């Protein structure tokens, strides 16, 4: 299947599920929630670095999808693209508000393997999150969508409402800045002896 055909199939499938949701089909509500909410949460958590804030953003974004569902235009973007855009905007609003009020955001809790691995994983997770947090919001959005959520540049351009070339430039600058921030931490993060 080509990329365009795959995108169209996903868009049609999203539209069909949203139609079923509006018709009162509870299974469609569950399918959409399970397919979309974890991706929204992951993006918000990486953007905000805070589980509670990410949960709030996910609830708000999903609520907006349900409210939009009766007027959903099957020819418009995939539901996931639309949701990522809503999530990106909600995160930007939160970051701006937190910056204005000077609110501190506690770290995300990490999943837990063994004690030593946990410490190492937590250190690596914290190092990446700390570096991401220092990027300007647009660069952070682009890097997370491209290199952590694994989206293509065309979809990211649609989400961030910019040209594909601008996305490429943003992600390149974001990665360069991250590399500079992480330089010198290789041994500290336990990569040298693996």
């Amino acid at each position, binding site marked *: 299947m080509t990329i365009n055909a795959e995108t169209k199939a996903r868009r049609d499938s999203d539209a069909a599920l949203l139609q079923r*949701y*509006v*018709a*009162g*089909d*509870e299974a469609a*509500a*569950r399918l*959409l*929630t*399970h397919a979309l*909410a*974890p991706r929204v*949460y*992951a993006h918000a*958590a*990486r953007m905000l670095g805070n*589980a509670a804030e*990410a*949960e709030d953003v*996910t*609830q708000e974004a*999903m*609520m907006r999808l*349900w*409210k939009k569902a*009766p007027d959903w235009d099957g020819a418009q973007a995939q539901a996931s693209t639309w949701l990522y855009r809503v999530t990106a905007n909600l995160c930007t609003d939160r970051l701006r508000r937190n910056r204005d009020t000077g609110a501190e955001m506690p770290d*995300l809790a990490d*999943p837990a393997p063994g004690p030593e691995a946990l410490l190492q*994983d937590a250190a*690596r*997770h914290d*190092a*990446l999150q700390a570096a991401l947090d220092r990027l300007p919001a647009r660069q952070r959005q682009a890097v997370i969508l491209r*290199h*952590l959520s*694994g989206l293509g540049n065309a979809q990211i351009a649609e989400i961030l409402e910019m040209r594909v070339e601008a996305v490429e430039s943003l992600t390149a600058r974001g*990665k*360069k800045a*991250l*590399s*500079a*921030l*992480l*330089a*010198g*931490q*290789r041994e500290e*993060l336990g*990569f040298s002896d693996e």
Partner: protein
Amino acid sequence: MNDHGDETLERLLSEARAAPPAMPRGMLARLEAQALTVQPRAALWRRMVDSIGGWAGLGGLVTATVVGFWIGVAPPDGIATQVDLLLGDDVTMPVLMGAGWDFDEG
């Protein structure tokens, strides 16, 4: 650009991709409940059809109703015999006549 920085970044990104932030316990259930709370209700006829097993259930119900009605209107021979066996034949009891109450006036 620092090569170690690039390599460290690639490894951190790779690990982070493999372990995306997991939703807190119970969050998916809360989101499902939220979706169902604001979901438009299906029309009454649709909920009734769903409650009897969807279109297949409705088809079966209509077929059974039509067949039952038809058997009532024009029962096949075999079925009429069975009903007679069960309920017995019609019997006319000339009660009034037999009691001798049908006397002539005069």
